[in-house]
């Protein structure tokens, strides 16, 4: 079909506001879709611009939407990781410390 031919070689542009979306999140999202399309990322002060190029005839219209959702999810993942990193480190330290999982406060 006509449409089929078009979608394989026409790159699509997606923009993200730099104030809410980090380059890191975009890169992580891009990595996840590596088998379906490639992402060229042009970081900017106000906006990050992504150029999506299809591999293997993936339907870019549909993929663009998936990519947007994924970038949002990755932004959330980055946030969760940042917010929980200290607690994570603390739990692991506790797990492998010599006193074991007992709270130091409780050792009287």
């Amino acid at each position, binding site marked *: 079909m006509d449409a089929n031919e078009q979608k394989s070689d026409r790159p699509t542009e997606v923009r993200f506001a730099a104030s809410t979306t980090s380059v890191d999140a975009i890169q992580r999202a891009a990595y996840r879709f590596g088998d379906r399309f490639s992402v060229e990322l042009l970081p900017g002060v106000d906006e990050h611009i992504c150029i999506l190029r299809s591999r293997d005839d993936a339907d870019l219209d549909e993929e663009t939407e998936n990519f947007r959702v994924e970038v949002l999810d990755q932004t959330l993942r980055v946030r969760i990781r940042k917010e929980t990193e200290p607690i*994570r480190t603390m*739990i692991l330290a506790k797990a492998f410390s010599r006193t074991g*999982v007992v709270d130091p406060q409780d050792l009287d």
Partner: protein
Amino acid sequence: MSRFRGAEAFAASGDDWQLLPFRFERLNGRVLVTNMVGEHLVLSGEDFEVLATGELPADSDLVRRLRAKQVIKRSGERAPLSLLALKARTRHARLAESTGLHIFVVSLRCEHSCPYCQVSRQSEDRDRYDMTLATAERGLDMTFRSPSRSLKIEFQGGEPLLNFGLIEEVVRQAEVRNRDEGRDLGFVIASNLALLSDEVLDFCARHNIHISTSLDGPADLHNRNRPRPGRDSWERAVDGIRRVRETLGVDHISALMTTTKRSLDRVRDIIDTYVDLGLRGIFLRPLSPYGFAIKTKSYSAYDAERWIDFYREGLGYILELNRQGLDLTEYFSTVILRKMLTNVEPGYVDLMSPAGIGIGALVYNYDGSVYASDEGRMLAEMGDETFRLGHLEVDTYESIMTSEALLAPLEESFALSAPMCSDCAFETYCGSDPVYHYATSGDFLGRKSESDFCRRNMAIFKHLIDLYENDEFARRTFLSWAGR
């Protein structure tokens, strides 16, 4: 009037929630959330929004569920931290304690000529392709140098029964050594059973040896996969299985199948064959990408998708049989379910991170070379020595375990720091399998978005969670598999 306070009085106030580390994955509109140690819960899209935006209400079903699964806590609470630490420690301790598997390739010779097997030789040249006693003894030295409390020695080939004399000697010597060591010692012979004699059976019975054999399914499938003079591989295997069941006991025999293109639409026939033989479980095994299979391009014919369908259909059929009262376990799912539903680390080499190579298994080849895994040895037979860790004549346990050939893949493949895996909700169920990724993509890590390993595992994880959440019978069956 009452001296009692209502439930509201004990509900937490809404603004001091702290997130605990968690990961998520969208599943058709719903969202899977896993906590730091891999306990899961499935939330509706709306509930997940509430969690994501951080505007959690004071008390609600959602808050209860999130607290129960240690996804959130109040700032003063310490119990959730202790519990997460305890679970992380338990898992890790089991990992460190996991059975050390020591594989002795006692002979490379084999009387079969299977097309996907790249290691065996059809040769009468014993001197060239059999392990010598001196090499085996060095292998035993190394086995007993490993710290695990339980040691499993597995004899492989080629066809190991072609060098049965050596097996007897290794078993005897290992038992003598173990009198002082007191480890939990076990033996397995991986054989096609074509050469199973009463003498072998008798020896196995006396030394409590387990037999693991190959069974690809019904006769036509099996015999096409495994040509041997007389075209009777299946008949011999089946006869062998019957005899092992009766002389050693049902729990001393297990069968492993090799999945080929021809297997893919015969999963029911394959399972029926296993059931008919009275085997208690089956391992719906992914097709191996190694060695001959890659050379002949027979691997590329299988895309991950077709295998996943094969697995889904097989698992569905196994559950159906269980529903009818048969006790039949699918072992690949069981490995994953144990990680999903318990704090036990099953120590299955392909699904471990850090990778199970070296720690989970060492392979002593017939010629004395040491490999990080059986697959690593197969690659070597094809001329790629990447996973060769050293040689029994010149290396010590320490030099093997600190060799670059082991540490580099371990480090580079570590899932917790790998792109995609580090954020993956399934990371604790999964593994890093550097040998696989090396074989398929040339580096230890592999790009997970393009990796069939990842695609296949993710599909299985999602499928298992879907069944667990929505089908009471499957849930119970899964719990009982995990609890074994």
